[in-house]
């Protein structure tokens, strides 16, 4: 009898455990009140250095550090038509120090431009119905001392009947406004040369419109693919006013770039589950724009499952870029050039980015804290063939 009781208890515990692990769409119960789904905190520390800063015309230090923090809260509920509504509320704060920005006015030992804080909240909503159709919308805002942006987006997605494929369309716009802070020696208004809140700078606009389409497809029980294409059109002031360009006659000018740009990137993702412990995540992108920049980017991440709850994720990314025709280095432009920049981000180069991450999702919470559902730590080293090198370390904590 005692054995029978124990068997029944074990069975009951098994059922409870199985129910606790089953996904939300069992059809038996759907939460109709707004519920906290998860909270994600992402923090990163980024440091770069090099010797080709655009602020000083393609020469000079590119030393920069950036500390970035964001918190994203995801809430969800089902309505009376069994449609799932999901809200994402995000707040991000980045603080950076930049030696090259400090050279907007090199006469100061350390001016206010040496550091800035970017603040960027956003809100989005999505609704998915029983037929696998999703509608969504979102707004965003970004503020830093010399740059403000308001963004909006609309989303439509539709799964196929057999749920093997999904088409998605996202339309986005950013309406940006930047303060025209010129290098100190090129200011014509006889300003104080300072860089403070009370300076009266002229402003310029930048508008971005983009359409992103994607198709994701399950190929078999181990393999899935996604095709992506964006069409991005930008207009307005597309350079940065504090980027110097030195001509071959030793005169100094502000970077001048066309007032429109059309970018077309095409991408493909492929994820493959090898055996029971390894996931290969591949990505390739071809990019072309009407400034004659073209690029090939490929990356591979291997997720090795050390156990069902711990994964190690080494990764490598390669990028080859053919630079814009408007680029030339220090004292290489001539007065005959209509457009000119010495920003090495727009030049020809190869870049390599490699590193590894560790992901922990123990069943009783990270460090035994039940609400800390997942922790991921990732570090990488980035190099460009033009001498820029950077290190980044990021941490994601997921609470449920």
């Amino acid at each position, binding site marked *: 009898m005692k054995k029978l009781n124990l068997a029944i208890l074990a069975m009951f515990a098994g059922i409870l455990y199985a129910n606790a692990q089953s996904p939300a769409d069992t059809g038996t119960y759907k939460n109709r009140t707004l519920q906290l789904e998860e909270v*994600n905190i*992402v923090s*990163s520390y*980024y440091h770069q250095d090099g010797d080709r800063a655009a602020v000083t015309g393609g020469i000079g230090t590119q030393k920069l550090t*950036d500390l*970035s923090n*964001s918190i*994203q809260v995801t809430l969800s509920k089902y309505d009376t038509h069994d449609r799932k509504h999901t809200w994402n509320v995000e707040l991000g704060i980045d603080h950076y120090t930049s030696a090259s920005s400090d050279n907007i006015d090199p006469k100061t030992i350390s001016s206010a431009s040496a550091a800035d804080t*970017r603040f960027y909240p956003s809100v989005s909503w999505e609704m998915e119905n029983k037929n696998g159709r999703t509608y969504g919308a979102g707004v*965003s805002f*970004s503020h*830093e001392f*010399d*740059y403000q942006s308001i*963004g909006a987006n609309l989303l439509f997605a539709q799964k196929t009947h057999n749920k*093997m494929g999904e088409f998605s369309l996202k339309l986005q716009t*950013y309406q*940006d406004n*930047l303060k025209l802070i010129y290098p100190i020696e090129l200011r014509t208004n006889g300003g104080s040369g300072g860089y403070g809140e009370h300076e009266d700078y002229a402003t310029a606009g930048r508008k*971005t419109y*983009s359409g*992103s389409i994607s198709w*994701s497809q*399950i*190929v*078999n029980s*181990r393999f*899935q*693919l*996604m095709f*992506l294409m*964006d069409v*991005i059109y930008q207009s307005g002031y597309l350079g940065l006013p504090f980027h110097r360009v030195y001509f071959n006659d030793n005169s100094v000018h502000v970077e001048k770039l066309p007032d429109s740009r059309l*970018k077309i*990137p095409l*991408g493909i993702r492929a*994820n493959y*589950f090898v055996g029971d412990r390894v*996931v290969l995540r591949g990505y390739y*992108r*071809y*990019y072309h724009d009407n400034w004659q920049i073209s*690029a090939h980017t490929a990356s591979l991440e291997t*997720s090795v*499952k050390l156990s069902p709850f711990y994964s190690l*994720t080494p990764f490598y990314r390669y990028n080859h*870029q053919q630079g*814009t025709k408007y680029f030339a280095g220090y004292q290489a432009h001539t007065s005959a050039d209509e457009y000119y920049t010495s920003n090495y*981000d727009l030049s020809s180069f190869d*870049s390599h980015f490699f590193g590894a991450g560790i*992901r922990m*999702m123990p069943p009783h919470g990270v460090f035994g804290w039940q609400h800390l559902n997942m922790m*991921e730590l*990732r570090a990488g080293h*980035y190099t460009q063939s033009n001498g*820029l090198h*950077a290190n*980044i370390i990021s941490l*994601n904590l*997921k609470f449920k």
Partner: protein
Amino acid sequence: MTKTTCRLVLLAAATAMLSTACTTVKEYQKNRLNDGEMTLGNRKVEKTELSFESYREGASGANGAKSGGGCGCN
């Protein structure tokens, strides 16, 4: 045929071949596809990496991240 047209034809052919190669996977067979590592998108921990790549490189987009605008990047 231009290089771009040739690439588009190759892409369309590869897509057509893949779509015919697909096998229907039932919900109960999706345990591997539903694994967190199989997500067809960026992970949250990659957020800052994607930002600095869009600042430091001329190319951006087709990766679910920002592709211009919204910041002082390209």
